[in-house]
């Protein structure tokens, strides 16, 4: 028990250190936020507008991170695209990246950026195809439960929580790695981000919403720590 507690204390200190470092690296007075990726192709990139603010609030409540209240929306070709450490992409349908966008996204991801993609049903085929443009030389790998992203802050020993039903399959997490770092985390058959949305949007019970927010926080913490 003592060992466990000490480990936790170490973890807390480490996290504190990381967060302070991250915050220190940001311009004075800036607040951490998540950038929602605007994409073309017809899919609803704007889906669930309440999800990111809720997650940011949850993170602020559970960690020493000065989070903003709102998301920012950014396109790959925007000038300030590289200003955000974490990108979020979701939707139900088509996504297309032009060659230039794919190249820019690759540059972003291979230079410290992180992309979290959540399939809200119908995005899978398009996302995988477009990411092959971004990383033609990499494989999208199934992420085992032992990976740090499931343990970075809250413990998810059995992998991703199941928030929504889609095709009656267990939730799955995939990822692209660059130089050993997970740079893209893609969740399917769970719709974590729907669980971040306001309760009345999808009628998720509190327990599911909490699981989704915890997993969301794990993702963000992992993204900031690595």
């Amino acid at each position, binding site marked *: 028990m003592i060992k466990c507690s000490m480990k936790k204390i170490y973890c807390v200190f480490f996290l504190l250190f990381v967060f302070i470092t991250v915050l220190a690296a940001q311009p004075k007075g800036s607040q951490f936020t998540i950038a929602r990726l605007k994409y073309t192709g017809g899919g609803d990139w704007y889906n669930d507008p309440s999800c990111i603010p809720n997650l940011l609030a949850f993170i602020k409540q559970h960690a020493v991170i000065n989070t903003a209240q709102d998301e920012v929306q950014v396109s790959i070709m925007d000038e300030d695209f590289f200003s955000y450490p974490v990108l979020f992409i979701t939707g139900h349908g088509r996504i297309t990246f032009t060659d230039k966008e794919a190249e820019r996204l690759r540059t972003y991801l291979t230079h410290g950026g992180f992309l979290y993609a959540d399939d809200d049903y119908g995005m899978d085929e398009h996302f995988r195809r477009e990411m092959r443009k971004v990383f033609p030389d990499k*494989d999208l*790998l199934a992420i085992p439960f032992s990976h740090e992203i499931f343990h970075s802050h809250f413990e998810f020993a059995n992998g991703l929580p*199941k928030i929504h039903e889609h095709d009656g399959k267990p939730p799955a997490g995939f990822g692209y790695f660059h130089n050993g770092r997970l740079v893209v985390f893609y969740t399917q058959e769970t719709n974590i981000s729907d669980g971040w949305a306001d309760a009345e949007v999808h009628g998720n019970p509190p327990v599911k919403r909490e699981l989704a927010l915890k997993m969301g926080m794990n993702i963000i913490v992992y993204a900031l720590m690595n």
Partner: protein
Amino acid sequence: MSNVTNTYNELISRLKEYRTRQKALFFSHNLCRVLAILLAVFLLLLLAETILDFTPQLLIVIAILFTFAAALALLWQLGSFFLLFVIHSQKPSLNDIALQVGSFYKKTDDRLANALQLIQRYYGDTRYSRSLIEESLNISAGALQDHDFKNFLDRKPFFRSVKYVLAALIITGIFSLFLGTQFNTALLRYTHPYLDSRGRQAHFIVLPGHVTALRNTDIPVKIWVSDSAAQNLSLHFSDREPVVLTKTGADTFYYTIPEVKETFSYHAEYRRFSSPDYKVTVEERPLLRTLKIQITPPAYSKITPWSLDDNVGDISALKGAQITLTGQTNKPVQSAMLLFAGGAKITARVEERSFSAKFTIWQNDTYIIDLVDESGNHSDKPITYTIRVIPDQYPLVDIVQPGKDIDLGDDMTIPLLIEARDDYGVSLLRLAYQVLPQGDEQIDSSRFVLQKLQGFDYGKDILRVGLDWDLSTSDLMPTDVVVYYVEGYDNDTISGPKRAVSKMYRARFPSLYEIYQDITANQDNVIEGMEDVFQQEQELQKQIADLAQEMKRATEVNWEKQQEAEEILKNRQDMQEKLQDLAADLNEMVDKMQNENLVSAETIKKFQEVQELYKEIMTPEMEQLMREMAQALENMDRNLLQKALEEFKLSEEEFNKNLDKTISLLKRLKIEQQLDQAQKMAENLAERQENVADKTAENADMERLLKEQQNIDHDKQALGEMLQDLQKEMSATPAMPEQEVAEAMNTLESDSLNTGLQNLEEMLQSGNLSKFDKTSKQVQNRMQQVSQQLLKAKNSMSGAQQQKAFAELKKNSRQILELSKQQEEVMQKTGDPMTGDEQVTDIAEKQQEIRTGLGRVTDNVFRLSKENFAIDPGIYKALGLASMQMDDAVSALEERNNTAAANNQGNAVTALNQAMHRIQASMQNMMQGGGMGMSFQQFMEQMQQMAKGQQGINEQTLGMGLGKGLSMAQQAQMARLSAEQGQMRKSMEQLANEAKGLSEVLGDLGNMAQEMQQVENDLNRNIITRETITRQNRILSRMLDAQKSIREREYSRKRQAERGKDYFATSPDELDENLGERENRLQQALLQAKKEGYTRDYLELIKQYFEALTRQNEKNGN
């Protein structure tokens, strides 16, 4: 007075002389004694040396001691002389001398001494009588007048001493006489201790004397000794046993000291003589202790510098690689030089025992490292190291896809997959292309346009570039040919980037008419081929029937029967092969249509259904029967053959039926497809016309535009021919939309269109383009009208198919009614209290039968519901509920719980009735809709067409300007626009009616038609207000929104929030070491292999192996 003085002086003089002589005797005596002693000692020493043969050292000591003693003795004598005659010259006093003299003569006694004392008072002291003093002096002087004082001297000791000296001399002389040479030699040795056997000093000359030699070298020693009598001498070493040398030359001895290892001293000895000690200082040659080589490949290779293993000097590296060589030596060196076989010399920087050098390799070579120590010694036998330049291979560039000459598709893009390889990275890829206008086959190499392919990770060894080469902006005209290739450069900045070129391919931009002709021809081939097979099949059936009949009469399988049966099998096999070939053709055709978007998605779907149907023609059972028949033939078994023939016959009938059905479907589909094609072609002509107008406005190449305008005219004629053919085909097929096609044909052949096209060509020829845009828009609208009319025809045709669906729904409803009736009967029996156990079993069986029947109906309804939007999903749900209740009823009956069973059965009846109600509602809906429901795809296509049309009307309306006061021409145009808007309204009303099933998603399309009516009214009144424009924009916006809404409908059905259930999930496998970074894996493996010094061939093998692994992973879907 003078006498006294004279006497006195004389006396004094005599006394002084006496005193002097006395001292001389004393001195001589002593001197002789010393000499005698020295001689004696000397003699003794000589004798001792003669007898004892002292060592030179002892001799020297003795000689020194003797010399020292003699010197002391003589010095003492000299001191004595000085003391006697100088310092104590007045001693003894004359008074004492007078007393000594007086003692020798009795008469005088001490009178002389007294007289001398008195005489001293004679001149100063008056107390004494002078006379007395004179008298005393005279008496004493008189008494001694005749005596010689010398006689009083004692000479005996002196003479004794002299005797001793003489004796010593004599003895020495005697010894010298008797001992002769030995005595003389002994004397000589004292004076010269080092003398040879002959009494001479022994001299040695030892060569090389003190010397510094290299380890393991031999040292030749040459010794010359001054004694010619010497026959042997010994050579002594500090670290080994002495060796005895024998004279081999004139007084010279030779010896070679073998392989000296450590520093030592040596000297030669002859008799008791010894040469001085000489030192041999052994030194090592400069030696390379450690060698380290770091190879820094040229930067372009992106290979990180690596080091060879310690002491490995053989270098294999890329040309231009910089080599940093460092070494440690066994001793300080003054220089280190790298000497290359090619003649180059590189001086290394030296510091004590280490050195370093840098050089760049350019060619194969060898080198040695020459070390020179501070003594000037060079390193011994330096190792020759090799330098091998690994060649940087030329890159390889290949256009993997399409990898052949192709026709450009509808999207005007060529999906290129370019693979470029280079052993150290590809630095640049350029796409080179040129457009060959229609009919021009001559490639002009100077006209190639080079386009750098950007946005890729250049520098990689393997670069796979996938890009959609968009040629839509290349001003291509139909029938133009694009010739292209890709050139790649490696990143060899040392020798200069090497260039490689892929194979050259052509992409032809076919006219749509050509494409459709091609597809139609293919389709005709498939149908004709299937019809041939069908004919063969009928003949085959007859053959089988005849043979089966004969076999009934025959008692055995004779040779003729066997031949006939084998022929049947062979024909069957041929047919099968032919069908397979046709299937491949069909697949290829469908793929092409699908990939190039040549027909609608709905048509493609139907083709895919035909493909599925096609698969059913050749069933596994048929294969089995053929095998059985072959087996019967082999065994010559009459019964088996007969049985096989009978079964074969039945199977062939089924085959024939399927084939016939497929052919019919294909023929029907061909019409549908041609209609599709015609519609697309009309649409394409409109787009091309718009494109020409745009280009004209941009003042593009008028000649090309004229050509394109002529092509449009030509293709319009081709479209007319296509529609004529289509009309012919339709006339031979029932339930075809001939009327709609005829309307489209009329529009296409209308004077306004023909004149418009003619005018456009003339305008382009004359260059008078003032009305070009306006005329072009009119032509474009006409074309779009043709497209819409054809689309309407297509939908009408689909409506016929909807009727079929309606019929199926009706059939299913009858079946449900029947099932409901049966269920009710069973329910009554179940609920009858008189029903016994045996009857319950029967009831249960009947219930199961009803359940099975319901399953079939449910499947049918489900299939229908997937194909048609008009089918209410509630039907399926109600049927599912009924099935569930029936299952429960069966279970209850098995448990003999009749009450529960009856209850379930009642619920089942209720659910069936609900399903019936919903079916009827759907059928009603279909009937009201006219088209009996519209599919998603149909709606999308029609709405898309209408949106384009509305956009055209909007633009033209906007071009008219706001307000009134229109010219006659403008009024005419306004009337035309009003008519077009009216046509659009009618289409919208019809669409709204047909798409009632989609009303949930679309809202009320009828509102849109009302808006259109208002616009139409404005146009009729020749009034265009701001509200008119706004309304038109709203209509267009609504049309576009409707498409978006319907597109999202599919998702929304599944998007409805459903809380996630908990799943038992297992973790995926642990991550592979390479974390999915395929290229890294390959690169690392290659790098490692390179470091490990694998040969080029092995490297290539390793590369191929990893590439194969990568491909395998890709196939596996990773």
